[in-house]
Protein backbone atom coordinates (compact mmCIF):
# COMPACT_ATOMS: atom_id res chain seq x y z
CA UNK A 1 0.00 0.00 0.00
CA UNK A 2 1.20 3.49 -0.73
CA UNK A 3 2.21 5.65 2.18
CA UNK A 4 0.71 8.77 0.67
CA UNK A 5 -2.02 9.02 -1.93
CA UNK A 6 -2.92 12.24 -3.71
CA UNK A 7 -6.23 11.75 -5.48
CA UNK A 8 -7.42 14.31 -8.00
CA UNK A 9 -6.20 17.22 -5.89
CA UNK A 10 -6.68 20.62 -7.51
CA UNK A 11 -6.66 24.17 -6.23
CA UNK A 12 -8.37 27.27 -7.57
CA UNK A 13 -7.94 30.65 -5.92
CA UNK A 14 -10.88 33.06 -5.90
CA UNK A 15 -10.44 36.03 -8.24
CA UNK A 16 -9.03 39.21 -6.75
CA UNK A 17 -11.54 42.09 -6.76
CA UNK A 18 -14.09 40.36 -8.93
CA UNK A 19 -11.46 39.11 -11.37
CA UNK A 20 -11.30 35.64 -12.88
CA UNK A 21 -10.56 32.84 -10.42
CA UNK A 22 -6.99 31.60 -10.76
CA UNK A 23 -6.33 27.93 -11.23
CA UNK A 24 -3.12 27.04 -9.42
CA UNK A 25 -3.24 23.28 -9.70
CA UNK A 26 -4.88 20.98 -12.22
CA UNK A 27 -6.17 17.74 -10.68
CA UNK A 28 -3.15 15.75 -9.58
CA UNK A 29 -2.87 12.04 -8.87
CA UNK A 30 0.18 10.69 -7.19
CA UNK A 31 1.17 7.73 -5.04
CA UNK A 32 4.19 7.82 -2.77
CA UNK A 33 5.67 4.57 -1.48
CA UNK A 34 6.95 4.29 2.08
CA UNK A 35 10.53 5.53 2.54
CA UNK A 36 10.63 7.10 -0.90
CA UNK A 37 12.45 10.39 -1.33
CA UNK A 38 10.37 12.33 -3.84
CA UNK A 39 11.43 15.71 -5.16
CA UNK A 40 8.85 17.91 -6.84
CA UNK A 41 10.56 20.08 -9.44
CA UNK A 42 8.88 22.96 -11.20
CA UNK A 43 9.27 26.57 -12.30
CA UNK A 44 8.34 29.22 -9.75
CA UNK A 45 4.61 29.77 -9.43
CA UNK A 46 3.69 26.33 -10.75
CA UNK A 47 1.77 25.42 -7.62
CA UNK A 48 4.29 22.93 -6.21
CA UNK A 49 4.31 24.68 -2.84
CA UNK A 50 0.51 24.75 -2.89
CA UNK A 51 0.49 21.00 -3.41
CA UNK A 52 2.84 20.52 -0.47
CA UNK A 53 0.75 22.80 1.74
CA UNK A 54 -2.34 20.77 0.86
CA UNK A 55 -0.55 17.58 1.92
CA UNK A 56 0.47 19.35 5.14
CA UNK A 57 -3.16 20.32 5.72
CA UNK A 58 -2.32 24.03 5.79
CA UNK A 59 -4.54 24.58 2.75
CA UNK A 60 -7.63 22.73 1.60
CA UNK A 61 -7.83 21.33 -1.92
CA UNK A 62 -10.64 22.67 -4.14
CA UNK A 63 -11.26 19.13 -5.33
CA UNK A 64 -9.85 15.73 -4.47
CA UNK A 65 -8.28 14.41 -1.31
CA UNK A 66 -5.01 13.40 0.29
CA UNK A 67 -4.68 10.11 2.16
CA UNK A 68 -1.83 9.35 4.54
CA UNK A 69 -1.78 5.69 5.57
CA UNK A 70 -5.34 5.49 4.28
CA UNK A 71 -6.60 8.35 6.45
CA UNK A 72 -7.86 11.54 4.82
CA UNK A 73 -5.93 14.72 5.61
CA UNK A 74 -8.19 17.48 6.91
CA UNK A 75 -5.90 19.64 9.02
CA UNK A 76 -2.21 20.00 9.86
CA UNK A 77 -0.86 17.46 12.32
CA UNK A 78 2.34 16.07 13.80
CA UNK A 79 2.24 13.05 11.47
CA UNK A 80 3.32 15.39 8.65
CA UNK A 81 6.44 17.29 9.65
CA UNK A 82 7.26 20.37 7.62
CA UNK A 83 10.32 22.48 6.95
CA UNK A 84 9.60 25.88 5.41
CA UNK A 85 11.72 28.03 3.14
CA UNK A 86 11.47 30.98 5.54
CA UNK A 87 13.21 30.58 8.88
CA UNK A 88 10.43 29.45 11.19
CA UNK A 89 12.30 28.62 14.37
CA UNK A 90 10.53 30.12 17.38
CA UNK A 91 12.82 33.04 18.22
CA UNK A 92 11.96 32.93 21.94
CA UNK A 93 13.11 29.32 22.29
CA UNK A 94 16.67 28.02 22.25
CA UNK A 95 17.81 25.44 19.71
CA UNK A 96 17.10 22.60 22.16
CA UNK A 97 13.69 24.03 23.11
CA UNK A 98 12.78 24.44 19.44
CA UNK A 99 13.62 20.81 18.75
CA UNK A 100 11.60 19.77 21.81
CA UNK A 101 8.55 21.84 20.80
CA UNK A 102 6.53 19.04 19.22
CA UNK A 103 7.42 16.59 21.98
CA UNK A 104 6.25 19.10 24.55
CA UNK A 105 2.99 19.63 22.69
CA UNK A 106 2.49 15.90 22.90
CA UNK A 107 2.89 16.10 26.67
CA UNK A 108 6.13 14.17 26.88
CA UNK A 109 7.99 14.44 30.18
CA UNK A 110 11.02 16.71 30.32
CA UNK A 111 13.41 13.84 31.03
CA UNK A 112 12.30 11.81 28.04
CA UNK A 113 12.45 14.91 25.80
CA UNK A 114 16.05 15.63 26.74
CA UNK A 115 17.31 12.30 25.42
CA UNK A 116 15.51 12.67 22.09
CA UNK A 117 16.59 16.30 21.68
CA UNK A 118 20.22 15.40 22.35
CA UNK A 119 20.17 12.68 19.69
CA UNK A 120 18.73 15.06 17.06
CA UNK A 121 21.10 17.87 18.00
CA UNK A 122 23.82 15.34 17.34
CA UNK A 123 22.25 14.15 14.09
CA UNK A 124 22.26 17.61 12.52
CA UNK A 125 25.66 18.51 13.97
CA UNK A 126 24.63 21.28 16.33
CA UNK A 127 26.37 20.04 19.48
CA UNK A 128 27.45 23.03 21.53
CA UNK A 129 24.68 25.26 20.14
CA UNK A 130 21.81 23.80 22.18
CA UNK A 131 21.36 26.93 24.23
CA UNK A 132 21.73 29.47 21.43
CA UNK A 133 18.82 31.63 20.30
CA UNK A 134 17.84 31.28 16.63
CA UNK A 135 19.03 34.86 15.98
CA UNK A 136 22.55 33.82 16.87
CA UNK A 137 22.63 31.10 14.20
CA UNK A 138 23.50 31.23 10.50
CA UNK A 139 20.78 30.43 7.96
CA UNK A 140 22.17 26.93 7.43
CA UNK A 141 22.20 26.22 11.15
CA UNK A 142 18.64 27.50 11.50
CA UNK A 143 17.45 25.15 8.77
CA UNK A 144 19.34 22.26 10.34
CA UNK A 145 17.52 22.99 13.58
CA UNK A 146 14.22 23.17 11.68
CA UNK A 147 14.91 19.73 10.16
CA UNK A 148 15.77 18.34 13.59
CA UNK A 149 12.61 19.90 15.02
CA UNK A 150 10.45 18.25 12.37
CA UNK A 151 12.23 14.87 12.68
CA UNK A 152 12.17 14.82 16.49
CA UNK A 153 8.40 14.44 16.23
CA UNK A 154 8.99 11.22 14.26
CA UNK A 155 6.47 12.12 11.56
CA UNK A 156 5.11 9.59 9.07
CA UNK A 157 6.24 11.85 6.24
CA UNK A 158 8.62 14.80 6.06
CA UNK A 159 7.58 17.73 3.84
CA UNK A 160 10.18 20.27 2.77
CA UNK A 161 9.27 23.45 0.89
CA UNK A 162 12.48 24.71 -0.78
CA UNK A 163 14.21 24.44 2.59
CA UNK A 164 17.62 25.46 1.23
CA UNK A 165 16.32 28.11 -1.16
CA UNK A 166 17.59 31.04 0.89
CA UNK A 167 21.05 29.58 1.49
CA UNK A 168 24.25 30.27 -0.43
CA UNK A 169 25.43 27.63 -2.89
CA UNK A 170 28.12 26.05 -0.73
CA UNK A 171 25.93 25.77 2.35
CA UNK A 172 23.16 24.43 0.16
CA UNK A 173 25.41 21.59 -1.09
CA UNK A 174 26.40 20.66 2.45
CA UNK A 175 22.79 20.72 3.61
CA UNK A 176 21.78 18.40 0.76
CA UNK A 177 24.42 15.89 1.83
CA UNK A 178 23.36 16.19 5.47
CA UNK A 179 19.68 15.59 4.76
CA UNK A 180 20.41 12.76 2.33
CA UNK A 181 22.76 11.17 4.86
CA UNK A 182 20.03 11.26 7.51
CA UNK A 183 17.55 9.73 5.08
CA UNK A 184 19.98 6.97 4.04
CA UNK A 185 20.49 6.01 7.68
CA UNK A 186 17.03 6.49 9.14
CA UNK A 187 14.66 5.95 6.20
CA UNK A 188 11.69 8.26 6.07
CA UNK A 189 9.10 9.14 3.47
CA UNK A 190 10.06 12.55 2.11
CA UNK A 191 8.39 15.07 -0.20
CA UNK A 192 10.85 17.77 -1.16
CA UNK A 193 9.84 20.77 -3.27
CA UNK A 194 12.54 22.61 -5.21
CA UNK A 195 13.17 24.56 -8.40
CA UNK A 196 16.83 23.50 -8.48
CA UNK A 197 17.34 20.67 -10.99
CA UNK A 198 20.63 19.43 -9.53
CA UNK A 199 19.16 19.37 -6.07
CA UNK A 200 16.09 17.50 -7.31
CA UNK A 201 18.17 14.74 -8.91
CA UNK A 202 20.80 14.47 -6.19
CA UNK A 203 18.32 13.98 -3.36
CA UNK A 204 15.61 11.93 -4.99
CA UNK A 205 14.67 8.39 -5.61
CA UNK A 206 11.98 9.86 -7.87
CA UNK A 207 11.62 13.33 -9.44
CA UNK A 208 8.17 14.66 -10.28
CA UNK A 209 8.39 17.48 -12.82
CA UNK A 210 5.51 19.93 -12.83
CA UNK A 211 4.29 22.16 -15.63
CA UNK A 212 3.88 25.92 -15.53
CA UNK A 213 0.71 27.24 -13.90
CA UNK A 214 -1.80 25.72 -13.68
CA UNK A 215 0.49 22.95 -12.46
CA UNK A 216 0.10 19.34 -13.40
CA UNK A 217 2.57 16.45 -13.51
CA UNK A 218 4.65 16.61 -16.66
CA UNK A 219 6.98 13.71 -16.02
CA UNK A 220 7.81 11.23 -13.31
CA UNK A 221 11.45 10.14 -13.41
CA UNK A 222 12.94 7.37 -11.30
CA UNK A 223 16.47 8.17 -10.16
CA UNK A 224 18.34 4.90 -9.82
CA UNK A 225 21.67 6.32 -8.77
CA UNK A 226 23.30 4.21 -6.04
CA UNK A 227 23.37 5.11 -2.36
CA UNK A 228 25.13 6.39 -0.36
CA UNK A 229 25.52 9.34 -2.66
CA UNK A 230 28.58 11.52 -2.53
CA UNK A 231 28.72 15.07 -3.87
CA UNK A 232 31.08 13.93 -6.65
CA UNK A 233 28.05 12.15 -8.10
CA UNK A 234 26.95 15.51 -9.43
CA UNK A 235 29.75 15.41 -11.99
CA UNK A 236 29.17 11.82 -13.15
CA UNK A 237 27.94 10.94 -16.64
CA UNK A 238 24.66 9.39 -15.49
CA UNK A 239 23.91 12.46 -13.42
CA UNK A 240 24.62 14.74 -16.37
CA UNK A 241 22.33 12.69 -18.61
CA UNK A 242 19.49 13.01 -16.11
CA UNK A 243 20.21 16.67 -15.71
CA UNK A 244 20.12 17.23 -19.45
CA UNK A 245 16.76 15.50 -19.72
CA UNK A 246 15.14 17.37 -16.83
CA UNK A 247 16.66 20.66 -17.93
CA UNK A 248 14.90 20.25 -21.26
CA UNK A 249 11.59 19.43 -19.53
CA UNK A 250 11.75 22.33 -17.13
CA UNK A 251 13.05 24.84 -19.66
CA UNK A 252 9.95 24.57 -21.78
CA UNK A 253 7.82 25.18 -18.70
CA UNK A 254 9.93 28.08 -17.53
CA UNK A 255 9.55 29.69 -20.95
CA UNK A 256 5.81 29.23 -20.79
CA UNK A 257 5.76 30.87 -17.38
CA UNK A 258 7.83 33.78 -18.64
CA UNK A 259 5.56 34.29 -21.65
CA UNK A 260 2.39 34.06 -19.58
CA UNK A 261 3.47 36.87 -17.29
CA UNK A 262 3.49 40.56 -18.15
CA UNK A 263 6.88 42.18 -18.16
CA UNK A 264 6.15 44.07 -14.97
CA UNK A 265 5.39 40.95 -12.92
Amino acid at each position, binding site marked *: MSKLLIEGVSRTFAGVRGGQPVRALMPIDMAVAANDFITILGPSGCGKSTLLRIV*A*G*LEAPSEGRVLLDGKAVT*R*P*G*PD*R*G*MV*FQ*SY*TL*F*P*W*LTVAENIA*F*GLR*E*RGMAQKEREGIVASYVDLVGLKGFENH*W*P*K*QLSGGMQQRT*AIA*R*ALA*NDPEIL*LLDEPFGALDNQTRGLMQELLLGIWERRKKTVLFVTHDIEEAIFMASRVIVMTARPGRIKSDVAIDLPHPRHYTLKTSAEFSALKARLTEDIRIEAMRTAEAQPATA
Partner: protein
Amino acid sequence: MRPLHPLSPGLRTVLGISFFVLFILFWAWITLGGHVNRIFLADPLSMLRDGWRLLVEDRFWLDILITIWRVFGGFVLASVVAVPLGIAMGAWKPVEAFLEPFVSFARYLPASAFIPLLILWAGIGELEKLLVIFVGSVFQIILIIAVKVGSTRRDLVEAAYTLGSTNNSIVKRVIMPANAPEIAETLRLVLGWAWTYVIVAELIGSSSGIGYMIINSQSRLATGQIIFGIIVIGLIGLLSDFAFKAFNRWLFPWSLA
Protein backbone atom coordinates in the same frame (compact mmCIF):
# COMPACT_ATOMS: atom_id res chain seq x y z
CA MET B 1 26.70 65.81 7.11
CA ARG B 2 26.24 62.35 5.66
CA PRO B 3 22.62 61.25 6.07
CA LEU B 4 22.02 58.17 8.26
CA HIS B 5 25.70 58.02 9.22
CA PRO B 6 26.11 56.58 12.74
CA LEU B 7 27.51 58.57 15.64
CA SER B 8 30.07 57.57 18.28
CA PRO B 9 28.47 56.95 21.70
CA GLY B 10 30.64 59.60 23.35
CA LEU B 11 29.63 62.34 20.94
CA ARG B 12 26.01 61.28 21.25
CA THR B 13 26.09 61.76 25.02
CA VAL B 14 27.85 65.12 24.73
CA LEU B 15 25.32 66.41 22.20
CA GLY B 16 22.40 65.13 24.28
CA ILE B 17 23.62 66.86 27.42
CA SER B 18 24.56 70.07 25.67
CA PHE B 19 20.97 70.79 24.75
CA PHE B 20 19.96 70.61 28.42
CA VAL B 21 22.82 72.98 29.23
CA LEU B 22 21.78 75.43 26.50
CA PHE B 23 18.18 75.25 27.60
CA ILE B 24 19.02 76.02 31.23
CA LEU B 25 21.43 78.80 30.18
CA PHE B 26 18.68 80.40 28.08
CA TRP B 27 16.25 80.10 30.97
CA ALA B 28 18.80 81.66 33.36
CA TRP B 29 19.53 84.45 30.88
CA ILE B 30 15.89 85.53 30.42
CA THR B 31 15.07 85.28 34.13
CA LEU B 32 18.24 86.43 35.92
CA GLY B 33 18.92 88.96 33.17
CA GLY B 34 15.54 90.57 33.89
CA HIS B 35 14.04 89.94 30.45
CA VAL B 36 10.83 88.48 31.88
CA ASN B 37 8.81 89.36 34.94
CA ARG B 38 9.83 87.27 37.98
CA ILE B 39 6.17 86.84 38.91
CA PHE B 40 5.50 84.75 35.82
CA LEU B 41 8.70 82.77 35.61
CA ALA B 42 11.08 81.89 38.40
CA ASP B 43 14.79 81.65 37.70
CA PRO B 44 16.64 78.30 37.98
CA LEU B 45 18.25 79.16 41.29
CA SER B 46 15.07 80.11 43.09
CA MET B 47 13.41 77.08 41.55
CA LEU B 48 16.02 74.87 43.22
CA ARG B 49 15.64 76.80 46.48
CA ASP B 50 11.85 76.46 46.37
CA GLY B 51 12.17 72.79 45.53
CA TRP B 52 14.51 72.14 48.44
CA ARG B 53 12.16 73.93 50.81
CA LEU B 54 9.25 71.93 49.46
CA LEU B 55 11.04 68.65 50.09
CA VAL B 56 12.42 69.51 53.50
CA GLU B 57 9.70 71.67 55.06
CA ASP B 58 6.49 70.78 53.24
CA ARG B 59 7.13 67.07 53.02
CA PHE B 60 6.68 67.15 49.25
CA TRP B 61 8.20 63.66 48.99
CA LEU B 62 4.93 62.32 50.44
CA ASP B 63 3.10 63.90 47.50
CA ILE B 64 5.61 62.33 45.12
CA LEU B 65 5.03 58.91 46.66
CA ILE B 66 1.27 59.22 46.49
CA THR B 67 1.43 60.26 42.83
CA ILE B 68 3.70 57.33 42.00
CA TRP B 69 1.32 54.97 43.76
CA ARG B 70 -1.62 56.36 41.78
CA VAL B 71 0.15 56.01 38.45
CA PHE B 72 1.23 52.45 39.08
CA GLY B 73 -2.07 51.46 40.67
CA GLY B 74 -4.14 52.76 37.77
CA PHE B 75 -1.66 51.43 35.26
CA VAL B 76 -1.60 47.92 36.74
CA LEU B 77 -5.41 47.93 36.91
CA ALA B 78 -5.63 48.92 33.24
CA SER B 79 -3.00 46.35 32.19
CA VAL B 80 -4.68 43.50 34.01
CA VAL B 81 -7.90 44.18 32.10
CA ALA B 82 -6.44 45.27 28.78
CA VAL B 83 -3.69 42.73 28.08
CA PRO B 84 -5.92 39.62 28.09
CA LEU B 85 -8.61 41.47 26.14
CA GLY B 86 -6.11 42.72 23.57
CA ILE B 87 -4.68 39.23 23.11
CA ALA B 88 -8.17 37.76 22.76
CA MET B 89 -9.12 40.39 20.18
CA GLY B 90 -5.95 39.86 18.17
CA ALA B 91 -6.18 36.09 18.27
CA TRP B 92 -9.88 35.49 17.69
CA LYS B 93 -11.53 37.48 14.92
CA PRO B 94 -15.11 37.20 16.29
CA VAL B 95 -13.96 38.77 19.56
CA GLU B 96 -12.30 41.51 17.54
CA ALA B 97 -15.42 42.10 15.45
CA PHE B 98 -17.48 42.30 18.65
CA LEU B 99 -15.27 44.68 20.66
CA GLU B 100 -13.13 46.61 18.22
CA PRO B 101 -15.71 49.23 17.14
CA PHE B 102 -16.58 50.09 20.73
CA VAL B 103 -12.97 50.20 21.91
CA SER B 104 -12.01 52.41 18.97
CA PHE B 105 -14.79 54.78 19.92
CA ALA B 106 -13.95 54.72 23.63
CA ARG B 107 -10.31 55.45 22.86
CA TYR B 108 -11.24 58.97 21.74
CA LEU B 109 -13.14 59.77 24.92
CA PRO B 110 -10.80 62.09 26.79
CA ALA B 111 -10.01 60.76 30.25
CA SER B 112 -10.07 64.28 31.67
CA ALA B 113 -13.68 64.76 30.57
CA PHE B 114 -14.62 61.79 32.73
CA ILE B 115 -13.25 63.37 35.88
CA PRO B 116 -16.53 65.10 36.87
CA LEU B 117 -18.44 61.86 36.39
CA LEU B 118 -15.84 59.79 38.19
CA ILE B 119 -15.94 62.24 41.11
CA LEU B 120 -19.71 61.79 41.26
CA TRP B 121 -19.36 58.03 41.26
CA ALA B 122 -16.23 57.45 43.26
CA GLY B 123 -15.76 60.63 45.26
CA ILE B 124 -12.47 62.49 45.36
CA GLY B 125 -10.54 59.68 46.99
CA GLU B 126 -7.89 57.36 45.65
CA LEU B 127 -10.33 55.24 43.66
CA GLU B 128 -11.27 58.22 41.49
CA LYS B 129 -7.60 58.93 40.66
CA LEU B 130 -7.01 55.31 39.75
CA LEU B 131 -10.10 55.30 37.57
CA VAL B 132 -8.97 58.37 35.61
CA ILE B 133 -5.72 56.61 34.72
CA PHE B 134 -7.61 53.40 34.05
CA VAL B 135 -10.01 55.09 31.62
CA GLY B 136 -7.16 56.92 29.94
CA SER B 137 -5.00 53.82 29.42
CA VAL B 138 -7.17 50.76 29.09
CA PHE B 139 -8.57 51.31 25.59
CA GLN B 140 -5.23 52.36 24.18
CA ILE B 141 -3.53 49.22 25.51
CA ILE B 142 -6.29 46.96 24.21
CA LEU B 143 -6.10 48.35 20.69
CA ILE B 144 -2.33 48.41 20.32
CA ILE B 145 -1.98 44.86 21.65
CA ALA B 146 -4.82 43.60 19.44
CA VAL B 147 -3.06 44.99 16.36
CA LYS B 148 0.32 43.51 17.33
CA VAL B 149 -1.17 40.11 18.14
CA GLY B 150 -3.17 40.18 14.90
CA SER B 151 0.04 40.54 12.93
CA THR B 152 1.74 37.52 14.50
CA ARG B 153 3.97 35.81 11.94
CA ARG B 154 1.74 33.32 10.16
CA ASP B 155 4.61 31.02 9.25
CA LEU B 156 5.38 30.49 12.94
CA VAL B 157 1.74 29.62 13.56
CA GLU B 158 1.77 27.21 10.63
CA ALA B 159 5.02 25.62 11.80
CA ALA B 160 3.47 25.05 15.23
CA TYR B 161 0.41 23.40 13.68
CA THR B 162 2.62 20.99 11.74
CA LEU B 163 4.35 20.16 15.03
CA GLY B 164 1.04 19.15 16.58
CA SER B 165 -0.17 22.32 18.31
CA THR B 166 -3.87 22.66 19.04
CA ASN B 167 -5.76 25.94 18.66
CA ASN B 168 -5.37 26.71 22.35
CA SER B 169 -1.69 25.90 22.45
CA ILE B 170 -1.14 28.14 19.41
CA VAL B 171 -2.36 31.03 21.57
CA LYS B 172 -0.44 29.96 24.65
CA ARG B 173 2.81 28.74 23.13
CA VAL B 174 3.14 30.83 19.97
CA ILE B 175 1.02 33.97 19.93
CA MET B 176 1.71 35.00 23.52
CA PRO B 177 5.47 34.45 23.65
CA ALA B 178 5.93 35.83 20.12
CA ASN B 179 4.27 39.10 21.11
CA ALA B 180 5.44 39.34 24.71
CA PRO B 181 8.27 41.84 24.02
CA GLU B 182 5.96 44.06 21.96
CA ILE B 183 3.31 43.91 24.66
CA ALA B 184 5.89 44.93 27.25
CA GLU B 185 7.00 47.79 24.99
CA THR B 186 3.39 48.91 24.64
CA LEU B 187 2.97 48.95 28.40
CA ARG B 188 6.12 51.02 28.73
CA LEU B 189 4.74 53.55 26.27
CA VAL B 190 1.36 53.74 27.96
CA LEU B 191 2.94 54.13 31.39
CA GLY B 192 4.37 57.39 30.05
CA TRP B 193 0.88 58.56 29.12
CA ALA B 194 -0.45 57.53 32.53
CA TRP B 195 1.84 60.16 34.03
CA THR B 196 -0.02 62.90 32.19
CA TYR B 197 -3.42 61.58 33.29
CA VAL B 198 -2.46 61.46 36.97
CA ILE B 199 -1.49 65.11 37.00
CA VAL B 200 -4.79 66.08 35.39
CA ALA B 201 -6.61 63.98 37.97
CA GLU B 202 -4.72 65.70 40.76
CA LEU B 203 -5.34 69.19 39.43
CA ILE B 204 -9.05 68.66 40.01
CA GLY B 205 -10.54 67.75 43.36
CA SER B 206 -7.43 66.59 45.12
CA SER B 207 -5.65 67.35 48.37
CA SER B 208 -2.39 65.55 47.76
CA GLY B 209 0.05 64.61 45.01
CA ILE B 210 2.36 66.47 42.66
CA GLY B 211 -0.56 67.87 40.65
CA TYR B 212 -2.17 69.20 43.81
CA MET B 213 1.06 70.95 44.78
CA ILE B 214 1.23 72.53 41.33
CA ILE B 215 -2.32 73.88 41.35
CA ASN B 216 -1.81 75.03 44.94
CA SER B 217 1.35 76.89 43.96
CA GLN B 218 -0.44 78.63 41.13
CA SER B 219 -2.73 80.47 43.52
CA ARG B 220 0.35 81.71 45.36
CA LEU B 221 2.21 82.56 42.13
CA ALA B 222 5.01 80.24 43.25
CA THR B 223 6.29 79.54 39.76
CA GLY B 224 9.52 78.08 41.15
CA GLN B 225 7.55 75.34 42.85
CA ILE B 226 5.47 74.69 39.75
CA ILE B 227 8.55 74.25 37.63
CA PHE B 228 10.16 72.08 40.29
CA GLY B 229 7.04 69.88 40.30
CA ILE B 230 7.10 69.57 36.53
CA ILE B 231 10.78 68.63 36.55
CA VAL B 232 10.16 66.01 39.23
CA ILE B 233 7.44 64.48 37.05
CA GLY B 234 9.80 64.41 34.09
CA LEU B 235 12.59 62.81 36.12
CA ILE B 236 10.37 60.12 37.59
CA GLY B 237 8.97 59.42 34.14
CA LEU B 238 12.49 59.10 32.75
CA LEU B 239 13.59 56.82 35.60
CA SER B 240 10.58 54.52 35.35
CA ASP B 241 11.10 54.36 31.60
CA PHE B 242 14.72 53.33 32.05
CA ALA B 243 13.76 50.74 34.64
CA PHE B 244 11.02 49.38 32.41
CA LYS B 245 13.38 49.17 29.45
CA ALA B 246 16.03 47.36 31.48
CA PHE B 247 13.40 44.99 32.83
CA ASN B 248 12.16 44.17 29.33
CA ARG B 249 15.68 43.54 28.18
CA TRP B 250 16.28 41.17 31.05
CA LEU B 251 12.95 39.44 30.45
CA PHE B 252 13.35 38.92 26.70
CA PRO B 253 17.03 38.34 25.93
CA TRP B 254 16.08 36.47 22.75
CA SER B 255 14.61 39.54 21.09
CA LEU B 256 17.96 41.36 21.30
CA ALA B 257 20.44 38.51 20.81
